[in-house]
């Protein structure tokens, strides 16, 4: 168990180092003058030269690399051109908003995807199964921004069920004092349930947008692994000796399907870290995705680079957590045996 974890951690660290190096190459070494990109389209030569000086872009590549590495590994992601603020601070400040959105979206996706997958597998080739398949294909080919606009048009503009895409709370509403950074949880902890409901109402549309798209891969994975489990010999034996069907479904089916489902949720989280740029921009959600969007608009490469590194580290960290969950679910890993799945 510990050997396994140690090995996983080592690989993750190597991956993080790899990410940091690749980001350097993308931003500094690729053709395209980093100074000109930073200066923007209207800069004159003098301005470009100033920026070249300021960011050390005329130094030889190995020197730039050394400076960059030593900065990044002390947690310093540089200074944003746009705000003059520290990129690390600005990202950390916006992270809770993104995580709250991501958390509820994954919860919604799991609530839709897992039961649908179980029913589809239990009633294979029935109309429920066919509906599930159509839903899965729809989800995998959905454009987040289109679904988001559709929801804004019908549920906000036409029906006024939910507030418009402006922020996490109505203009003028004071956010709750930060404990977890999740407005819904913080409001509940302070006993302000009106505020909690308001936070949920603002969360609704972006969460539905992301949740719908994320439910598709979870549904597919649950269905496929449930079918595998239900076709196994131990299930056949259980049926033969007369174990009730619902018990087989959950004890033999779903428990064995849990491993791939965990993987699916991990993949989904990773996908969302990219997709949230679109959803946060669309719903004016003040998280890291929107920060990246604004950075792109003004060629703020420092901020963009910081965003990519943070997303990469989150993604790698998530995979470590998933491996821990794996080891917890699956005794074969815990006991250091080879896993067939």
């Amino acid at each position: 168990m510990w050997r396994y974890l140690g090995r996983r951690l080592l690989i993750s660290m190597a991956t993080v180092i790899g990410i940091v190096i690749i980001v350097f190459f993308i931003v500094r070494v690729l053709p395209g003058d980093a100074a000109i990109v930073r200066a923007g389209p209207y800069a004159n030569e003098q301005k470009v030269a100033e920026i070249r000086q300021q960011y050390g872009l005329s130094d030889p590549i190995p020197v730039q690399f050394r400076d960059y590495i030593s900065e990044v590994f002390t947690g310093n992601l540089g200074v944003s051109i746009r705000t003059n603020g520290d990129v690390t601070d600005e990202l950390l400040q916006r992270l809770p908003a993104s995580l709250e959105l991501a958390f509820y979206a994954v919860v919604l996706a799991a609530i839709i995807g897992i039961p649908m997958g179980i029913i589809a597998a239990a009633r294979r080739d029935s109309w429920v199964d066919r509906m599930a398949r159509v839903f899965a294909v729809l989800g995998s080919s959905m454009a987040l921004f289109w679904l988001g606009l559709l929801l804004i048009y019908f549920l906000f503009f036409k029906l006024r069920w939910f507030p418009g895409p402006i922020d996490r709370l109505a203009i003028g509403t004071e956010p709750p004092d930060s404990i977890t950074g999740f407005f819904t949880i913080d409001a509940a902890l302070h006993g302000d349930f009106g505020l909690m409901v308001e936070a949920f109402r603002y969360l609704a549309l972006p969460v539905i947008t992301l949740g719908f798209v994320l439910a598709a891969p979870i549904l597919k994975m649950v269905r496929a692994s449930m079918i595998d489990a239900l076709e196994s010999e131990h299930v056949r034996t259980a049926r033969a000796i007369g174990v009730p069907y619902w018990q087989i479904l959950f004890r033999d089916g779903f428990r064995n399907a849990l491993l791939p489902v965990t993987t699916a949720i991990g993949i989904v989280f990773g996908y969302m870290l990219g997709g949230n740029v679109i959803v946060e921009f669309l719903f004016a959600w003040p998280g890291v995705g929107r920060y990246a969007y604004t950075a792109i608009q003004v060629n703020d490469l420092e901020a963009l680079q910081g965003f990519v590194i943070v997303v990469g580290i989150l993604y790698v960290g998530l995979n470590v957590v998933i491996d821990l969950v794996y080891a917890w679910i699956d005794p074969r890993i815990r006991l250091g045996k080879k896993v067939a799945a």
Partner: protein
Amino acid sequence: MSVLGPTSPDGGAQERVEGFIAPEIPGKAYQLPLWRRKPLLIIGLVILGIYVLLAVAGPFFVDDPRVTDPANFYQGPSSDNWFGTDKFGRDVFARAVHAARLDVTIGIVIALSSMVIGSAIGVVSGYFGGWVDEVMMRLTDVVMAFPGFVLALVLVAAIGNSVPNVVIAVSVAYIPYFIRLTRAQVLAERELEYVDGAKLAGNSPLRVAFRHVLPNSMGPSFVQAALVAGWAILTVAGLAFLGVGIRPPTAEWGVMVAEGAPDIITGQWWTALFPGGMIVLAAMAFQFIGDDMGAETL
């Protein structure tokens, strides 16, 4: 196993019965017609066919997508302007049709180029192994540690906005999938006897790898390419929606959605929802095709 594809009806029980060999059925076994067995594949191909027709012939039948008509701004869908007009009075349908040519081409080019490059690297990596394989696998690990969209986003931001740059950036994000897929296939394929035969016949290692092993390992990649084409259209449009890559006033679906998005909350739904719907329908067609051919559709 394919995620949603058919599995053998007896759950593979037959293979496990030792010493039992299924008798050969003489003559051709009855099969349902293709459209009954794979309805989604047919639907996907029909939709894709319409798009290709639109992309090839469409632009000759509609107006210039750049022509503005300030007197007729924000007209709703009508028999003159099927998809209505936007804030400059441009015909949304004409722009969407011109965009079809650009978007469908880009999607297919990205799928093909990442497939060709990815499988070439994959066959070298899988067939020859050694340190090349080791380096390649670690590299794909790192690239796949980014969500694909974020990688494409930062690549385009760094190398600049243009259509070729978007194609390069999005292809790079998808190449690792094809490397992995081809490599896994090659690892199984190179153990087969015909490979020994090809070697004994005096073929050079490179020739065995590329002329014998690679063609036999491409099946899953072709299926995957169908899906990637759909995802690539979504990715390119998503980037354009954020103002990255393809920029206004180019007639491109993502650009059109971005330009039309603010109109949604003032009630002019047609400027964004029509081009957006064309993106989703195109992606769906590719998804249907890939899904019914048994791709790993996660």
